[in-house]
């Protein structure tokens, strides 16, 4: 276990360093001099020289990377041109919305994807299974923003059940503000619930071919007991680990959904920063999401190994 953990953590660290080089390079390959990028179009020559020296941009590129990495490790992601504030605080402002949206989406995914996947697997090969599997594939083929727009039309504009856009913090307006996230989380959940459904189904079918399942059936245990205690428990291991990947992926998938629902999250921040040419913010968000993505994957892999010792390092 420990050698596995060490090796797996090591590869993640190497990947992270390599990814950080790419992210560092980002600010140097965007159109225009990074100084103009950082100061905006209205900078005077004096300001430019001062910042160039201050940021060490007159130094060799390797040293520049090392000092950038050092600042990042110390929690300094640079300053936003648009907000005139540290990038870390700009990202932190959007974190509440994004994390709550991702969490609520995962609840829908678990509540819809897993039970329906179990039903499809238990009724394997029947018209019900084919219908559910087909519906899952359809859900995975629908653009989330299109679903979101029609959810707004039906449940916000026509029925008035939920607000159509925005999200005031629950720390100011209380938990009722979660209603702002119901429609966006549903839109975002559709394709991901479809994936979890297919995975649950495949994983259940996989386990049901195991010898111990046949033994359990042969012993005369009731069919639903076999499904619940022998198949489901083992099948869910793979499904739960997929939850980790899905949650990590949601942070970036939410870009379009947050834009449709005008949610003040990290995803909408990226889109607005692209339109504002606020490159330090884009760089910071990419870094934060990639780090979160790698860390969640690492944790999932390690806990998966802890729960199922048969897993081998590839």
């Amino acid at each position, binding site marked *: 276990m420990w050698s596995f953990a060490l090796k797996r953590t090591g*590869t993640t660290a*190497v*990947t*992270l360093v*390599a*990814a950080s080089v*790419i992210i560092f390079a*980002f600010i140097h*390959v*965007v*159109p225009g001099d990074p100084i103009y990028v950082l100061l905006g179009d209205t900078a005077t020559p004096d300001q430019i020289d001062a910042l160039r020296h201050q940021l060490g941009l007159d130094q060799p590129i390797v040293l520049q990377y090392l000092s950038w990495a050092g600042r990042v490790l110390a929690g300094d992601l640079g300053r936003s041109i648009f907000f005139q504030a540290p990038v870390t605080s700009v990202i932190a402002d959007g974190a509440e919305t994004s994390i709550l949206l991702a969490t609520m989406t995962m609840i829908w995914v678990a509540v819809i994807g897993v039970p329906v996947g179990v039903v499809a697997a238990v009724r394997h090969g029947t018209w019900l299974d084919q219908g559910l599997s*087909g519906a899952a*594939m*359809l859900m*995975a*083929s*629908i*653009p989330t*923003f*299109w679903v979101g*727009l*029609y959810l*707004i*039309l039906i449940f916000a*504009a026509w029925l008035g059940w939920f607000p159509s856009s925005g999200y005031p913090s629950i720390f100011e307006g209380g938990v009722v503000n979660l209603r702002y996230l119901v429609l966006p989380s549903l839109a975002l959940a559709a394709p991901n619930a479809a994936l979890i459904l297919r995975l649950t189904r*495949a994983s259940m*079918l*996989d386990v049901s*071919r195991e010898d111990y399942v046949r033994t359990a059936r042969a012993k005369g245990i009731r069919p639903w007991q076999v499904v619940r205690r022998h198949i489901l428990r083992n099948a869910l291991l793979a499904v739960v680990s997929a939850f980790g990947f899905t949650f*990590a*992926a949601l*942070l*970036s*998938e939410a*870009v*379009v959904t947050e*834009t449709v629902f005008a949610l003040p999250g990290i995803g909408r921040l*990226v*889109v607005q920063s*692209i*339109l504002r040419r606020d*490159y330090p913010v*884009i760089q910071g968000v*990419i870094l934060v*999401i*990639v780090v979160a*993505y*790698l860390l969640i994957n690492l944790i999932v892999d390690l806990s998966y190994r802890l729960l199922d010792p048969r897993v081998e390092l590839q």
Partner: protein
Amino acid sequence: MSRDVAILWLKPFIARPIALAGLCILLATVLAAVFAPWLSPFDPYAIDPVTRLTPPNTIHWFGTDQFGRDTLSRVIHSARMALLIGSGVVVFALATGVPVGVLSALFPRLGHVLMRMVDVLMAFPALLLALGLIVILGPSVANAILAIGVGYMTTTTRIVYGLTLRLRAETYVEASRSMGAGTIWLISKHILPNLVSPLLVQASFVFAFAQLGAASLDFLGLGAPPEIPSWGNMLAESRTFITRAPWLLFFPGMMIVATAFSLNLVGDALRDRLDPRFRQVFGEKG
């Protein structure tokens, strides 16, 4: 011979009516794209302020948009952009993923380095990677293809790498090698011919997800230029009119769903006729 091959490829579709329906929808989309100027009842660019935002009727079957342009004609013309982006992304993903994957599997030392680089790229979520590339390259059709394509290059490389590793271990490949066959011979005679079917499966999935990716970029205003009709652009432009003219967003959205769904159905049917050992590489067992 050719008739037998045709039957072999059509078999999975005949057994599954829904997959056949998907194939027909795709064919219809291709025909719509090719014959767009003849099929469209109106000029997709013609502005007519008098008939703006008219609901579907006998003259404008899909209604008109906020500039009075005919929605049906624009939906038909948009099929061209859908095919262009989809095939562009597939070509890019295969042209980069196949050489990198095959060479990585045949030359383990090179492969160790290349596959680690693929891992690094895979640490970037697909949409985020696409957005970052668009920021660097600027929004255009070609750049949208590249930005979306890079995300699928990595998955294609992984699949080709896994398949080639399996093929390399086959007895007939080893036999051929022990008889003195060179690398180029192995690749052209044994590896590539066996990759055709699985890559066709991969191509249909990539094509499907490229549709959704392109629609997202268009919707954010970072894809095809707004003057070009595309389903994503139509949704972006008409977004604010959704309460006044709900039909405007219905038809372009349905076309995205129909093409992506059809491609997924076709890919699924083709995957089921793959060699079971190859199927595992796609994450689907037995």
